[in-house]
């Protein structure tokens, strides 16, 4: 539904959740994104490709992955899940991830087809050993039998530290068996369905750099062993260091970057496509007469091309206008909203940061070091790409820095 009054604008412009399902169909706007191309690559070949997916915080990664699922769902069986829901972002190891991959594949596939008797027997006997070992160390955990017990176990390791530790101890020495089991399930399922599988692992980019290195650099080999197509989200900084970059990329078939929507080119020229995309986002969600042309441009400008920020600006501006009893968002409302967001950034920045920010603003190049990465992470610095990657600082703080 489209907003017809400011309270509805406030309601529809919700900075929290990525679009999915119904909302996806209604509000989605095509933007510059590797997802179309990626969907083509994935459906064109039988091979179990492994792809990395990178993008800044809050720039619509999850929404784009949902879009990808929609695009390929007729050709592939998509198995999407979020690491955040299944595991503990503070404490995640490769064994956990593989266990969850196995559980998710098994569950999704069992809904659609019946696995062969031999496979089930194999799975049951393998599971029995694992369950026995786990129950030895953690009495009364009540996992049941068969591979469903493994699924149950994967459900517990996210929340319970002790179970997590025990599970790792039991699974790690049996890792190759686990991967074997997963691959048998994949093979059986793909045959019965006549479709290939695609696993999409979202929110792996939310782990900190140390953990990410451990996962992808340290155990990239294991993570890429399941014989189906997989897309892994990863944190941006992982690709910054050249050494790591090389190692990581050798396990994978490619990586796609979801750049922020470009409102300007590198040389400062306005890029109208970017503006149009975000304008369309607004148009799909609200009537035109609820916001002046000027203030809409302003809101787009100061969002820096990040959809979440744009949505927040409009959301805040709607509230501000409504407080004054107006029925339309005007320039002063957007200005007010932008000021508040600026203050939020100022609060977390320090004088030392301003040096780097100045440099980036001028050169549009990244600098080395942890500080730059932190600023990128916090969205004080934004990443764009036209073939080549370049950077700029968040528009709300431009005035302060210069």
């Amino acid at each position, binding site marked *: 539904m489209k907003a017809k009054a400011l309270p509805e604008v406030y309601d529809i412009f919700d900075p929290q959740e990525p679009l999915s399902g119904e909302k996806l169909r209604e509000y989605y706007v095509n933007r510059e994104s590797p997802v179309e191309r990626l969907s083509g690559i994935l459906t064109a070949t039988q091979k179990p490709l492994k792809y990395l997916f990178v993008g800044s915080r809050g720039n619509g990664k999850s929404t784009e992955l949902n879009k990808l699922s929609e695009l390929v769902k007729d050709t592939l069986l998509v198995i999407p899940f979020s690491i955040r829901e299944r595991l*503990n972002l503070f404490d995640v190891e490769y064994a956990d991830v593989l266990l969850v991959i196995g559980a998710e594949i098994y569950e999704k596939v069992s809904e659609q087809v019946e696995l062969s008797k031999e496979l089930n027997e194999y799975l049951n006997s393998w599971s029995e050993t694992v369950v026995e070992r786990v129950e030895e160390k953690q009495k009364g955990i009540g996992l049941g039998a068969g591979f469903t017990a493994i699924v149950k176990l994967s459900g517990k390791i996210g929340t319970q*530290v002790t179970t997590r530790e025990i599970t790792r101890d039991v699974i790690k020495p049996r890792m190759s068996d686990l991967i074997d089991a997963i691959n048998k399930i994949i093979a059986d399922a793909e045959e019965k369905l006549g479709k290939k599988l695609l696993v999409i692992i979202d929110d792996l980019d939310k782990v900190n750099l140390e953990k990410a290195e451990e996962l992808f650099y340290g155990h990239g080999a294991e993570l890429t062993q399941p014989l189906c197509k997989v897309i892994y989200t990863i944190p941006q900084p992982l690709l910054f260091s050249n050494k790591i970059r090389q190692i990581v990329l050798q396990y994978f078939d490619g990586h796609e970057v979801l750049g922020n929507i470009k409102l300007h080119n590198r040389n400062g020229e306005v890029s109208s496509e970017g503006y149009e995309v975000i304008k369309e986002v607004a148009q799909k969600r609200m009537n035109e007469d609820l916001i002046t042309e000027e203030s809409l441009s302003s809101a787009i400008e100061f969002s820096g091309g990040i959809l979440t920020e744009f949505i927040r600006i409009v959301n805040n501006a709607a509230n501000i206008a409504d407080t004054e009893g107006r029925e339309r968002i005007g320039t002063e409302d957007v200005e007010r909203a932008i000021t508040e967001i600026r203050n939020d950034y100022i*609060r977390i920045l320090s004088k030392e940061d301003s040096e780097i920010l100045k440099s980036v603003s001028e050169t549009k190049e990244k600098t080395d070091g942890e500080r730059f990465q932190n600023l990128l992470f916090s969205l004080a610095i934004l990443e764009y790409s036209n073939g080549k990657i370049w950077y700029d600082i968040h528009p709300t703080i431009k005035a302060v820095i210069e």
Partner: protein
Amino acid sequence: MIYTQQLKQLLNELGLAKGRNCLLFVILDKSPNELIAVIESNGFTVNEICLEGELNLLEILTGWGETAESSIYFVSGISNQFPWVLGYLNLHRDLFYNIKRPVIIVGSEYEISEIAKLAPDFFRFRSRTYNLTKKRMRDKEEKFTMSLEKPEPVYYSLPIFEEEKGEEKLKERIKVDEYLLGTVRDDYKKAELYMSLALSHFKLDDFKKGKEYFDKSNAIRDKLSDEKGVLINYKRIADVLLWKGHLEEATEQYNQVLKLNPNLAEAYFSRGVAYHKLNQYERAIEDYNRAIEFNPEFTDAYNGRGVAYGEKGEFDSAIEDFDKAIEFNPESVGAYSNRGAAYYRKGEFDSAIEDYNRAIEFNPESVGAYSNRGLAYANKGEFDRAIEDYNRAIELSPNMAEAYYNRGNAYGEKGEFERAIENYNRAIEFNPEFTDAYSNRGVAYGGKRDFDSAIEDFDKAIEFNPEFTDAYSNRGAAYYRKGEFDTAIADFNKAIEFNPEYAAAYSNRGNAYAKKGEFDRSIEDYNKAIEFNPEYAAAYFNRGNAYGEKGEFDRSIEDYNRAIEFNPEYAAACFNKGVALGKLERHEEAIECYDKALELNPTDEDAWFAKGVNLEKLGHKDEAEHCYQKARELGYEAS
């Protein structure tokens, strides 16, 4: 509160966000009460949550469904849970989306900045940050100044003396802290995180790891010349060692703390507690003294010192200290309870009861106060009131062996032996080695004349405590009642061995010898009994009987007189005196005795008959006949 633009917009937003999820941050530089009042006066219901200790924000928020649609949540005190809450909220932020009520998190500029820096994914979930500080009001134009990143000392409130939440929670906490270590740059914060890790490991009994982190934290602090921080670290370690019961080590660490700051009342107090738990009362008192010296209103120190005096038996000093504790904290349940206990030990049961009354007034669920008040009533002989109190104690704490034991004793005193036994059974159920409960259950069985069960119980009591004087004595009494006089004597011997002044044991042994016909030995024992308890009516009575058996009726009569002197309602003594007088042909006096006996016990058919015999001897045939008649009516049968 002035209705600034910010405030108006905040109130408007709350209206728009009614009944849906909405996360807002509000920066305040004073108490939030005014703001809450303003929000409420605009038609919203404010659910206040003050975070501290182990309160889990998300757990509380999941109850949103029970609140009215116009409800909003107002969360303050978030820095009380730094740093772990930051990691926790960042990790579980998607749970916020399900909470269909606006949530306002209020804090100082510092607190909100920390959230933005260390929980950025959570922070991004916000709708907006409102700034309602005075500074903001004054500046019409926003001045943008970024501060220099001068690291500032920061000390988190790392809770130590909190309920054990279990291994899982501690491990999770450790993971969060390790994760945050990878994120923070600030050295002060790193030091605090290391300390938080140290404490978690100590709590998990991993002292090696704990010490490692402790050293890491101190290393950073030394580098920063952060003396205050070092002091705080030592105090925390000392506190957690104390909490874990590693008392010697705790005192060592407190020594360190006091070296760094010899005026720290808290540290003296805590060290005092450690000594106290080690039963080194003198040292404890010294430390409590110092604590009070540096903080003259230190309620806990007075309380602690009072308890220590109590352990030493110096009840008056103890009471003085509890008086003080109450002066500074008039609702101190502990102080009243303790003072009550001190009065109790002094035998001043009424004062004790008054104090327990106060304790209960301030904490109506104080199991100890009910239980102890019950004991005070029991000591006054008010067994019914005692039982009422024990009932309450048991209601509040159904596994409390002590309370069942006490209640059993009260029923026992009332002669309700069945009930007594039931209670002793429960006491033993909850504490299978409750020696006294076995012993008293034995006594209760004795009261029911079930001497075999009684002996079993005394056997058990003696098994647990081979020097249990009373148990030997009581077991002897049980054997006596069964007619096993030699075994009885063996037990009385034991009792006397452990307590050479045990009057009752002598008296009972005397009875056993008498039953065996060894009257001289029995008289020796009665002599002893009377030596140790000069008002022992029963001993006189029994000795009187023994002399009577030997034919020394004059001595008998003397003894019966003494018995009656010390127990004026001793009907049996009157009767037996009558018998002795009769033997001496002093019939009038005999009749007087039987009259006394009948006064005390009008249906005593033996007394009627004996009176009749004496009357006949005096030649009063009709009156005698009258007595015989009475005796027959009451069921007298010639033996």
